[in-house]
């Protein structure tokens, strides 16, 4: 029964995406209701699928009744169900914010629904080529959404992302081509068995994986190839940044973990030291550079954009470490980071809508005017640093623990080095988060005297000095969830245990 939910969850948003355009000819503001209704339905489907997966176990659906390996299948297992749930919840919650700050055009909501469909597709697909198609659906709609405010600057940021993102996806496709040459199949489960027969040190397979990893690095914005990301996040409309920062790179990182662990498997990673070392170096540099660059920013959105570079470095590092604890940490951090970035960009966007704050300096003593939003922002930033109890701490803890364990068992310094890098980057994170908190709470500015702003870009809705209630509620709930999930370490471990056991046997 619930198998049919998998294709529906992909198809419903994509089909519904046509409605705002079609109905928009007759009704003016039909986009938001359609999007809200659809994403709510997707949340319901995600909830049902998650309950089924965590209750009775993974299941799949063969599209069109063609059995894999020739047919395409959609798979819901412990890992994909978690990402699916995150995608559904965040895309529904962002709409609450988008209703207030816009964009309000019907076409925006069409693109938004297409994005949701693509994200769900990436998280559920069990086919390598199908993954490419969904990645490109996500990519295309993201480029369109980033340029949704129709300014030249955002178009330039979007085009930059388009070029880099397409190269990334194309490199992934080339890698898939190499794997296809080696194995003659595209179904993930089948490729993983065929690879065993071909051999993990076959140059074709190695090149294929290298191309795939580089492709995802571009999409996730790891350090040397991250330059599109801060521009894209900064120039996009606030509602778009919220959803893009929370989900788009997240599903690319999910795809990297999925392809590395489920398709190429740990045996491949163990057999190719050069590849894992390369990944560890890139992600280590990414963690440090991302954190350091974030600490140098004064634009709020840009600051947290660079912080994403560091956090995705942490997630990519789990591929290099390749231990059970590290993978658990990678998954927890993937979900946690998505949630935290959603909350942070929502909070920043809300304050920008209410008070026109774009830079750290603008935040001066804002906690007096907006105690709830500032408080939630503070909680979320501290969770990003990794202060327990929070989801941010949990992910970092497992990754660092896995790294130390790997270093302990193999005697290699790589694991210990990664743990040290995580520690140093935590200090950097604290450095930029502390700047935000200091401005918010201890700037000592009397806000009863109106502050003169000299920024050109007035956010939609102007500076009313009041925060809309509905998104504020979402923000508070997110902050509570970020802390509450920090207590759920054992829960994550037992829920993801079947997946981890399958990967590591």
């Amino acid at each position, binding site marked *: 029964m619930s198998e049919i939910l998998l294709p529906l969850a992909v198809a419903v948003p994509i089909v519904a995406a046509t409605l705002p355009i079609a109905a928009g000819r007759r009704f003016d503001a039909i986009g938001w209701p359609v999007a809200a209704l659809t994403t709510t339905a997707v949340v319901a489907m995600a909830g049902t699928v998650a309950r089924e997966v965590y209750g009775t176990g993974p299941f799949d659906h063969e599209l069109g009744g063609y059995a894999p*390996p*020739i047919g395409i299948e959609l798979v819901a297992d412990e890992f994909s169900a978690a990402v699916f749930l995150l995608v559904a919840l965040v895309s529904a919650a962002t709409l609450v914010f988008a209703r207030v700050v816009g964009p309000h055009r019907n076409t925006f909501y069409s693109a938004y629904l297409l994005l949701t469909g693509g994200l769900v597709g990436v998280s559920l697909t069990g086919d390598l*080529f199908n993954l*490419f*198609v969904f990645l*490109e659906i996500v*990519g*295309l709609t993201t*480029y*369109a959404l980033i*340029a949704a405010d*129709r*300014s*030249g*600057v955002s*178009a*330039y940021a*979007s*085009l930059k992302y*388009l*070029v880099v993102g*397409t*190269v990334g996806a*194309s490199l992934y*496709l*080339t890698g898939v*081509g190499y794997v*296809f*040459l*080696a*194995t*003659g*199949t*595209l179904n993930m489960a*089948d490729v993983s068995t*065929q690879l065993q027969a*071909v051999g993990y040190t*076959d*140059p*074709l397979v190695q090149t294929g994986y290298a191309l795939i990893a580089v492709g995802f690095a571009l999409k996730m914005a790891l350090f040397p190839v991250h*330059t599109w990301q*801060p*521009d894209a996040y900064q120039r996009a409309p606030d509602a778009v940044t919220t959803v893009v920062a929370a989900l788009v790179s997240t599903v690319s990182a999910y795809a990297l973990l999925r392809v590395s662990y489920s398709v190429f498997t740990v045996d491949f990673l163990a057999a190719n030291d050069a590849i894992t070392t390369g990944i560890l170096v890139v992600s280590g540099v990414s963690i440090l550079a991302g954190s350091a*660059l974030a600490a*140098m*920013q*004064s*634009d709020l959105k*840009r600051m947290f954009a*660079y912080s994403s570079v560091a956090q995705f470095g942490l997630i990519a590092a789990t591929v290099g470490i390749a231990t059970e604890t590290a993978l658990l940490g990678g998954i927890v951090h993937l979900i946690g980071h998505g949630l935290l970035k959603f909350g942070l960009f929502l909070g920043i966007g809300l304050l920008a809508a209410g008070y026109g704050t774009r*830079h*750290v*300096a*603008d935040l001066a003593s804002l906690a007096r005017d907006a105690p709830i939003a500032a408080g939630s922002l503070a909680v979320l930033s501290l969770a990003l640093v990794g202060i327990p109890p929070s989801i941010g701490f949990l992910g970092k803890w497992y990754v660092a623990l896995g790294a130390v364990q790997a270093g302990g068992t193999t005697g290699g310094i790589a694991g210990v080095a990664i743990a040290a890098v995580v520690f140093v980057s935590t200090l950097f994170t604290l450095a930029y988060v502390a700047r935000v908190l200091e401005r918010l709470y201890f700037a000592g500015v009397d806000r009863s005297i109106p502050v003169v702003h*000299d*920024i050109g870009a007035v956010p939609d809705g102007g500076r009313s000095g009041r925060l809309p209630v509905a998104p504020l509620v979402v923000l508070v709930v997110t902050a509570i969830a970020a802390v509450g999930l920090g207590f759920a370490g054992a829960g994550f471990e037992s829920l993801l245990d079947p997946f981890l056991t399958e990967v590591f046997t």
Partner: protein
Amino acid sequence: MMPISAVDGTTAVGVLASTTAFDVITTRHAYVAFALLLCTGLYVLIASPNLVKKIIGLNLFQTAIFLLFVTSGYVEGGSIPIVYPDAAGGPYVSPLPHVIVLTAIVVGVSLTAVGLALCLRIYDEYGTLRVDTLRELLREEGTLPAGSEAGGRTSDANGGESRE
């Protein structure tokens, strides 16, 4: 799944390892063309200062990948994979890569469309498609930090420091 492409692929590697460069070029010309097209596309993408030419480079890059897939389905003496009820004929070329490439072409076309639409908007706003001129304009406008090529290495020019 047809095992043909797998056989073709793995032997290709074996052949490559044991023959001279000349043999590779004469017998595996499709793969050589793939590599050349890929590199040309990537070079145009990186080196050309014109945004539209960058998109052309991107197209070339993607076309190279299509070529790789189509080549992987080729079988010596194979015919079009339309199997009639009496099932005579064969061997056939593998139809799967063709279907894949068809989908990938659609993806590529949509990407080109979005890219060109963005180019149009940039041209409307700034009157140029050259990246270097565009950077200068953005820098004058204050949206791109001065003296930074990649953008964002230093804090923004319109940053908050001056107003603290």
